[in-house]
């Protein structure tokens, strides 16, 4: 079972990266981890009551979740599972340990400027992910993927190359 990591910004157009990656594969099933970087709060009360699922709920939205479901259904034979995860630092050691702990075999990265930062504490993981020890591959990010900057629509998943 191959585990791969793809960064996301919880927009539907960022899921097109997943499509591009999976379309290139022939056989094998993949477990995909979609990660997003976000700093933890510096307030003690927030740290005390911190919950990853709550933070994920804040970041997730209807269109994104529907799009993930659509991907799961249409690539059922190639995708074993899609999970979301958060990373709280850009420290390369931290990233390496995370990748090791999760048995990630490969990471796919678009260009640094392509993903948005939806949360006020969001961070751009891509430059530091490039420095990790795991085997990487670049994916082309087509700026036309976004219907318009900062607009997240379910329809962004479709009509590419049309």
């Amino acid at each position, binding site marked *: 079972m191959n585990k791969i990591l793809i960064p996301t910004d919880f927009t539907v157009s960022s899921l097109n990266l997943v499509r591009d990656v999976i379309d290139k594969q022939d056989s094998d099933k993949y477990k995909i981890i979609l990660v997003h970087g976000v700093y933890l709060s510096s307030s003690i009360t927030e740290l005390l009551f911190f919950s990853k699922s709550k933070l994920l709920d804040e970041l997730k939205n209807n269109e994104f979740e529907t799009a993930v479901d659509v991907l799961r259904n249409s690539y059922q034979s190639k995708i074993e599972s899609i999970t979301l995860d958060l990373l709280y630092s850009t420290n390369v050691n931290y990233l390496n340990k995370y990748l090791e702990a999760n048995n990630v075999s490969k990471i796919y990265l678009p260009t640094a400027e392509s993903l948005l930062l939806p949360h006020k504490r969001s961070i751009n993981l891509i430059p530091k992910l490039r420095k990790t020890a795991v085997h990487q591959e670049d994916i082309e990010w087509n700026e036309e993927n976004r219907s318009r900057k900062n607009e997240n629509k379910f*329809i962004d998943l479709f009509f590419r190359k049309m």
Partner: protein
Amino acid sequence: MKIHNKIIYLLIGIQISFILLFSAFIYYSISNYSFTDFYKRLEIRAAITAKIQLEPNQDIESIQQMNHEFLEELPNQQYISFPIDQADDYLKQNENAIPHQIIEDIIETGKAQGNVGSKLFAGILYTTGLNKKYIVVVSAENYFYSHHIAYLRNLLFSTLGFGFILIPLLSIIFTRTITKPVNNIINEVQNISSENLHLRLEVTNKKDSISSLAKTFNDVLNRLETSFETQKNFISNASHELNTPLTTIIGEAELALSRKRTEEMYKKSLSRILSEAEKLDRKTKALLQLAQTGFDGKSQKFEKLRIDELLLDVHEVVSKIYTSSPILLDLSLLPEDPLKLKVFGNSRLLHVAIYNLLTNACKYSSNAPVKVALASSDKLITIIIKDTGIGIPPDELAYIYDPYFRASNVRIYEGYGIGLPLSKNIIHMHQGELTVSSEVNIGTTVEIKLPIGVFSS
């Protein structure tokens, strides 16, 4: 109004019988109790007076005082006592004074109670300190019986009288309040005729039968309206689509016949007529196909459908009619599992719904390409129809589902304003959702969401 009256009579009957029973029960219990009470009093007096009269004179003073102060003299109170062995003699002498039964009871059980008319007797067998047995009987007129109970009886009768007046009034008011919602529904429904089938009854959030009645009514109206609109839709489609080629044919023929032309020109004219006729033929066939799916008049049956087949069907039909509008299908994200493409629905109606939306996209974009996509998420199937046409002004977006409504920017495009409301009704009937988003001169995107049919097979 018959039910209205039935309810009133029933209410009146129940309430009156209840208060009658109630009054009777109270009257009976109280008069019973008054007897028991009175007998007790007589017994007490018998015991005390016996003690005073038959005992040797010790502590009599205090008892006499008690007797005086706390036991008032009952009306016509009489005290009779004699030794037990003189019982027979007494009976022979004073036959009318005490009933025989009482004396026998006293001898047998030690106490007795009885009455002659309104004169009540209570007797005990008293054993003096010197062990002599005496029969002691006290009698009195039952004051309570003669006075208080009469008062109670009159009181009950008068309140019963008031009740007989008040109960029908209250019942009528009550029934009217209860049947008001039903009367409201009747009045509202009378406003709905074939002209304004669009009206619906007001439904509250309460979970009572009146609410479900209103909801059911609205359901029926929905189905009726959909039926009506399906028919109107077909007729409008047919008349419009068939008109254009016919006009062209007629025009061409008239022009060719208007004066003498060369053989070449006649040939050209005829071939143009032929091609228009063929177009007409194709359109007729396509419309017939649509008619078979959308205009049946029979009841609406739901069955298992494959949404991708349905979409492809409609795509074919529309392409034949709007030959110059390219329709691009994006089926790249179809689910691998075909079960996720199954919908529980009515084939004809869904055909009509999607046909209308697709033709709208083609019609209002003047041959610019229309993009259609189909995909399944966890529980929903989504169909997206996106065009780059004239769009809908934002302040008119709220009215697009009103029948016969046409936006202000439709100008040259013909239409009757029935397609979209019909599609929305049909999709709602399938527990789905229709969302339209649009920007003027940029385009319109229509999203249809239908629940995936879950079938146990």
